[in-house]
């Protein structure tokens, strides 16, 4: 094998670290780039758990059911072979994590415990208290540190990825990055680049559960250099986030998986303390509307239900944007052991103990199902993806791979809870294997290339920096970010309509124009955060344009993308076999022929070019509409 190549991994969350680990173990040298120490990546915020069928709870769970739940949870929009391999790979991944020292919660017999999550009926979620993402990330982080100590991984923390360097054939041959302290721009050569830069929730800031570094800027930058973006309109709003002016902190779906109930007072004028409101005066709307799944319906459904109860029925607590998430009826010792981490977050930031008083929550921007378009190679025999194919997780730019939340691969129109830690880890591993396969077939390495393309890209980035730093206007980058968040929250949110989307597209164009009148407010040549932030916000605006344009182009309701004007309502009280339901099913299937397509976006200077491509439905034909009643 052609060992000893150099690979750049950008991003040190679960996806990036798994890719790093896999590539380094294949014998290649990895340069790992991150905006900060990798262990602070947003993966640490994942709370509830990671899905894997272990069938350890006496419920006859099966990998097939995990596949079906994931496909249907995503409204059939995800390609099915990758989902199959993902679900099949999950138990092995859990066992590997356990070997790395991850402190998974245990049953009294000392086995891995599992709990219930949304959109499924089986306890399938492994967890480490309510800080699962943190534990998983640290497990891989420790391994990467071990490889670093052995000289096989070189970390470049406090470096920001700015752009790809491509050779004359358009193959990715390295990157240009900026030292966030010295502001130095430097080109780094690599034989392959893996982008694992996470989500983009900051586009909705501050109404998001995402970390302040989840900007999507890196994905936007490669998009602007020709990488395709897919399913950008599918963005998940987590139903249960804390209220907050600076951030809407996540309260894990595990809270409901462990028995938490969502309700509002039946009478919005009922101002009694929640504990004093009797059962008869409470409206458990999720349990009412979806008796089969109750509080653990998928997130898009739960978020819309909360939206409906507050915005349409005016039943929010005190008439506002808030509903109760109630744990007070559960055993407090049990809840403390299983959900301690989120209880502590709520106590610290809301000043109220969820064991005594129901939490107040509302949906908030959480997770991008869409992302960089990545390829896969179907294995005709297994129906999954072909092991060690260099096509898996490859973007349309040769030599550039993407994994983790910044790709679009597994979740379709809506992600099921606890599938993200799984897809981040699994896709990092697969992308790593794929890169190793790609390097085997690669001819001349990037070290042999002339300096010209690298120097040129450094010069281009220096010019952009100079333009941002030298602007003498009145637009503060942090205020531009606020404006972007407010605009996207209002017009490209939980519920959408074409009028608002058209307005959003126009306003985003205007927002982009405002960068001409930028005022960084600081001239420092050392650790200038305003410069880095301004560049991120600009690229976020470019990505927001893709999201708005993709949402505008899709005239239907699917998963997280909800346009009431095009809603096909399930006839109330009717089920399969009833003529009304069958008529609905026929309408739904007809709509699928038009809309069951991956949305793709390509960069053009005058705005993204939106297209559609077929979804690989080779495992489960879309016969059954999603129905969680």
């Amino acid at each position, binding site marked *: 094998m052609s060992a000893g190549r150099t690979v750049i991994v950008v991003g040190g969350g679960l996806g990036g670290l*798994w890719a790093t680990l*896999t590539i380094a*173990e294949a014998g290649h040298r990895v340069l790992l780039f991150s905006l*900060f*120490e990798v*262990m*602070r*990546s947003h993966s*640490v*915020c994942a709370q509830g758990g990671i899905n894997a069928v272990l069938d350890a709870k006496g419920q006859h769970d099966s990998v097939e059911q995990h596949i079906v739940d994931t496909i249907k949870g995503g409204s059939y929009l995800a390609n099915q072979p990758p989902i199959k391999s993902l679900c099949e790979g999950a138990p*092995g*991944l859990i*066992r*590997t994590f356990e*070997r*790395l*020292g991850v*402190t*998974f*919660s*245990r*049953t009294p*017999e*000392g*086995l891995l415990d599992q709990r219930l999550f949304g959109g499924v009926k089986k306890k399938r979620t492994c967890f*480490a208290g309510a*800080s699962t993402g*943190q*534990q998983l990330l*640290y497990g*891989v982080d*420790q*391994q990467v*540190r*071990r490889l670093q100590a052995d000289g096989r991984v070189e970390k470049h*923390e406090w470096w920001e990825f700015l752009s790809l360097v491509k050779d004359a054939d358009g193959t990715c041959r390295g990157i240009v990055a900026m030292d966030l*302290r010295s502001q130095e721009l430097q080109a780094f050569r690599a034989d392959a680049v893996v982008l694992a830069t996470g989500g983009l929730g900051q586009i909705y800031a501050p109404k998001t559960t995402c*970390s*302040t570094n989840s900007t999507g800027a890196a994905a936007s930058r490669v998009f602007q250099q020709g990488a395709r973006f897919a399913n950008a309109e599918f963005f998940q709003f987590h139903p249960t986030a804390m209220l907050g*002016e*600076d*951030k809407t*902190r*996540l309260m894990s779906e595990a809270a409901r998986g462990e028995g938490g109930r969502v309700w509002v007072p039946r009478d919005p004028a009922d101002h009694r303390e929640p504990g004093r409101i009797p059962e008869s005066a409470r409206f458990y709307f999720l349990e009412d509307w979806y008796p089969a799944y109750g509080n653990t319906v998928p997130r898009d459904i739960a978020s819309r239900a909360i939206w409906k109860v507050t915005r349409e029925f005016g039943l929010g607590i005190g008439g506002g944007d808030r509903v109760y998430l109630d744990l007070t009826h559960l055993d407090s010792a049990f809840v403390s*052991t299983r959900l301690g*981490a989120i209880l502590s*977050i709520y106590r*610290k*930031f809301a*000043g109220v103990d969820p064991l005594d008083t129901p939490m107040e929550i509302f949906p908030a921007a959480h997770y991008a199902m869409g992302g960089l378009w990545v390829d896969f190679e179907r294995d005709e025999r297994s129906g999954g993806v072909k092991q060690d194919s260099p096509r898996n997780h490859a973007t349309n730019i040769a030599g550039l791979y993407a994994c983790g939340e910044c790709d679009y691969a597994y979740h379709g129109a809506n992600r099921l809870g606890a599938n993200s830690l799984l897809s981040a880890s699994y896709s990092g*591993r697969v992308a790593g294997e794929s890169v190793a396969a790609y390097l085997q077939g690669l001819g001349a390495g990037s070290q042999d290339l002339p300096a010209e393309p690298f120097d040129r890209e450094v010069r281009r980035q220096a010019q952009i920096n100079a333009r941002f730093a030298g602007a003498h206007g009145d637009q*503060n980058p*942090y*205020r531009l970010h606020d404006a972007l968040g407010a605009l996207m929250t209002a017009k490209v949110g939980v519920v959408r309509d074409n009028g608002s989307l058209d307005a959003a597209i126009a306003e985003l164009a205007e927002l982009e124009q405002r960068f001409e009148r930028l005022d960084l*407010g*600081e001239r*420092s040549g*050392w*650790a200038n*955060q305003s410069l880095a932030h301004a560049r991120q916000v600009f690229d976020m605006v470019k990505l927001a344009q893709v999201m708005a344009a993709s949402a505008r182009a899709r005239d239907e309701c699917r998963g997280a993308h909800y346009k009431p004007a095009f809603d096909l309502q399930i006839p109330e009280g009717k089920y399969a076999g009833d003529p009304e339901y069958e008529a609905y099913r026929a309408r739904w299937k007809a709509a699928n022929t038009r809309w069951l397509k991956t949305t793709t976006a390509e960069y053009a200077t005058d705005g993204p070019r939106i297209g559609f491509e077929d979804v690989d439905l080779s495992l489960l034909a879309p016969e059954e509409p999603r129905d969680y009643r």
Partner: protein
Amino acid sequence: MIRANVELRIRRQDTPGSAPYWQVFNAPVRERDNVISVLMQLRQQPVTADGQRVDPVAFEHNCMEEVCGACAMLINGLPRPSCSALIDELDHPIVLEPLPKFPVVRDLIVDRSRMSEHLQRVKAWIRIDGAWEIHERTQRQSQQAWARNYLYSRCMSCGCCMAACPQFGPDKAFVGPAPLAQVRLMNAHPTGRYDSAERLHAIMAEGGLTDCGNAQNCVRVCPKEIPLTTAIGELGRQTTLQMLKDLFGA
């Protein structure tokens, strides 16, 4: 909803080598704001109390919910994550300084790379053959053992314990409480145990466990309430036994 203004006294420093200086700001505060969210508001209009337009204050932030460890600083003299430092619960004026014992990068940003170096020094990892699937069942572990280990696995390397430790500092060899707690954690893992002698020898060298002076500030300032001094006691026991093994044969 701006509710009031709060006085912030911030120790600033332009570059690692330059002299620190103080600036006072009157920053707007909203309901349930914390130090980070106030700093975020402030950077939109960085004007000092005496009306001088200055560079925005540089500071670190990421998760805003006390799991990433990025935003630790000295708040009214004590080290803590600034995201969970609610304005209403602090004495005013609020005094912000960079986390001590680590080199300042700029303003409230410090370089904590020593923490990662120390984690390397104590070999805070499980030595696996490879991260591939080996088709073997997971090992059993009691809920009680899990509960003890889980406490240590929540360390987010924020550096508060290091900053408060009288034995840790830029010119001191001491490895610090956080990496020691990771040795405790790794030595308890069913396979991590195989390398426990190596880890113990690492912390029996200069700057290791014996450099702890038992001031126990670490456990008092740890935002995640990690029982660092219990880890230190347990490692005391492990190193005592290791010493006897070294002296008299295993």
